[in-house]
């Protein structure tokens, strides 16, 4: 089931309409940050929580407050925080890698994320909305994450960052955009379908180098 892991409730589009448009584009679920759980037609709406904290302790306190069944993401920051955040229990994905300094999400954080099964979220919004230097920085950061993903095997998830239904992008467009930073079509499909596994882990134990 393809899932857009970041749509924002509270924009110019209701959650119902966002789910309808996502369904029309070929998604089976959306994560709605600020939204409530439910189903619209065949599209499942998963509530999302984004944690922004200055320290791992404060992040942990916020993660505990997240409602049950929510998709919890922690916004990345400096390298020390990122290493700790990758290992926090209850975190499904790490977001905001395009806003970090170069190498802030490093090989230690990548290995921890792989061991704990924590995903890294790649947001398409900076590729779509930004121009020039900011877009180039985002492409560069994402290419770095893809390289670490190939080495350590932590999951990736993809989100549009849509606050309007016009900001959603079809899976075909997502595949084309992901080619900009070297993520192939197969990996894109895996990333779009990774949310179910993150919300309900329980597969066989996998050995990570």
């Amino acid at each position, binding site marked *: 089931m393809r899932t857009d892991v970041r749509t924002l409730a509270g924009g*110019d589009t209701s959650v119902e309409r966002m789910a*309808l448009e996502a369904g029309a*584009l070929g998604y089976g679920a959306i994560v709605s940050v600020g939204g409530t759980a*439910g189903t619209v037609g065949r599209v499942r709406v998963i509530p999302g929580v984004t944690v922004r904290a200055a320290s791992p302790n404060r992040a942990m306190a916020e993660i505990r407050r997240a409602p049950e069944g929510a998709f919890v993401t922690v916004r990345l920051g400096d390298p020390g925080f990122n290493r700790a955040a990758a290992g926090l229990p209850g975190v499904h994905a790490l977001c905001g890698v395009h806003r970090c300094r170069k190498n802030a999400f490093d090989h230690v954080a990548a290995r921890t994320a792989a061991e704990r099964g924590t995903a890294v979220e790649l947001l398409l919004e900076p590729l779509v*909305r930004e121009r020039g230097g900011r877009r180039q920085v985002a492409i560069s950061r994402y290419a770095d994450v893809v390289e670490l993903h190939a080495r350590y095997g932590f999951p990736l998830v993809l989100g549009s960052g849509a606050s309007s239904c*016009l900001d*959603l992008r079809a899976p075909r467009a997502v*595949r084309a955009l992901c080619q900009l930073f070297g993520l192939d079509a197969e990996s894109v499909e895996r990333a779009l379908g990774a949310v179910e596994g993150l919300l309900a882990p329980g597969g066989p134990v996998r050995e990570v180098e």
Partner: protein
Amino acid sequence: MKPRPPTLRPDWRYVLARIAPSYRVPDGKTLYLAIAEAVTALFGDGGAPAIDQAVVAVERGHVIVRCRRGEEERLIAALATITAIDGCAIAIHPRAVSGTIRSLRDRMVAPPEPVLVGEDADGGTVRQRFRIGASRSDVIVHDYKGERVVYFGTIDFEE
């Protein structure tokens, strides 16, 4: 000017894309300029000529864009970066790629026409409510700030 023999002509591919919202379809030239700007911004002056895009048709809420064979994915990526035309929010969603325009025309499904179901004025604010198909409803608000659209669904949200 004598045309080139067929073996020397470039191979073209055509991308069919749906324009959203369907009632804000711009004309071909405006669309061409927006696509050219998006392609140049994303791939630069060096990459844009390799794509060699052109708007072939704008009809029934869709646009058909031509590009060189092998450059379809880059064109689709550039189309995905278009967020507004003439100050109006817009999205271009790719639907199909083909070697002929005819096969794309066969795949075109016209979007439902918006139907005005209500209009009210409050001071300087005018709200027009449109119903689009069975499950979508758009409210266009005109006020001193200009025009903005609020998008709603009309089917039940099951918790």
